[in-house]
């Protein structure tokens, strides 16, 4: 629980699969970047300030092209389990299921203005594009992550008031 004078550190994660080469073995990278919401957006959006840190390179999932139909579901299940496991290990410092004490999750941090603050990092946002979200959440391709909009009606948004 937050106490008076505790400081929230909202973490912003970004990830996207990056295509590296066409004819040399279809190389891909899958970096995960992190920044904190305490910095103003002007700093965060300026690449030369280096305020975005790369924290992980996820393993590239196996392609489903050469896999026979009967193993496809199993392979998808395995891919999902591997991705979950990797993300769970990367984000392990933010979860405190083993030691749910009052002190867990808080860090005494020396901030840039030379004050110590009791900070709690919280995962607040994960920025990605639509195919990336469907990879992370293990959804069907081209489906909205946030709402129940049917596939063929994406882009035809009607505001409920009108």
């Amino acid at each position: 629980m937050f106490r008076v004078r505790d400081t929230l550190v909202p973490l912003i994660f970004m990830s996207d699969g990056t295509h590296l080469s066409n004819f040399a073995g279809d190389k891909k990278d899958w970096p995960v970047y992190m920044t904190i919401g305490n910095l103003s957006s002007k700093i965060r959006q300026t690449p030369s300030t280096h305020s975005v840190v790369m924290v992980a390179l996820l393993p590239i999932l196996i392609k489903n092209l050469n896999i026979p139909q009967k193993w496809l579901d199993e392979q998808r299940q395995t891919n999902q389990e591997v991705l979950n496991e990797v993300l769970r290990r990367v984000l392990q410092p933010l979860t405190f299921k083993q030691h749910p004490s009052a002190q867990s999750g808080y860090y005494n941090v020396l901030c840039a203005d030379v004050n110590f603050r009791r900070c709690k990092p919280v995962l607040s946002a994960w920025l990605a594009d639509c195919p990336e979200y469907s990879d992370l959440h293990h959804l069907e391709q081209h489906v909205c992550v946030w709402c129940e909009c049917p596939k063929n009606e994406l882009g035809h948004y009607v505001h409920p008031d009108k």
Partner: protein
Amino acid sequence: MKTHYHNVLKEENTTLGFPNFKYGDGVQKLVASMPDDQALGEWELHTLEDMRWNDNHQSPIKYWSRDIIKSILWLIGHPAYAERQIFAPQPCNNCDTPPKRLYTERHTADWWWETQVRRDTRG
């Protein structure tokens, strides 16, 4: 062409045992050898021991990562960002009449307020 800087580096190499600056690797080692609260975490190669892709891909699954907490400490404590850091939410309005609420920054929106301040008052 040799410059004065070369000689300085050479002397430092011999006396202080600095890593070599001729390759990018030496700089990385120097950065990684800084004190804990000032350095980003080092890259580590992890292996998922008990998982395999499938029967045809038996090689162990590997991924690279670095310590999230160290990265957070580095970002918060970096002196270059000192002037533009925010540690508390603050609702913000623009100059219009009537004023309109701004949601452009993370600390001017609602989520931070609800997470940090409202829970304070609840105890």
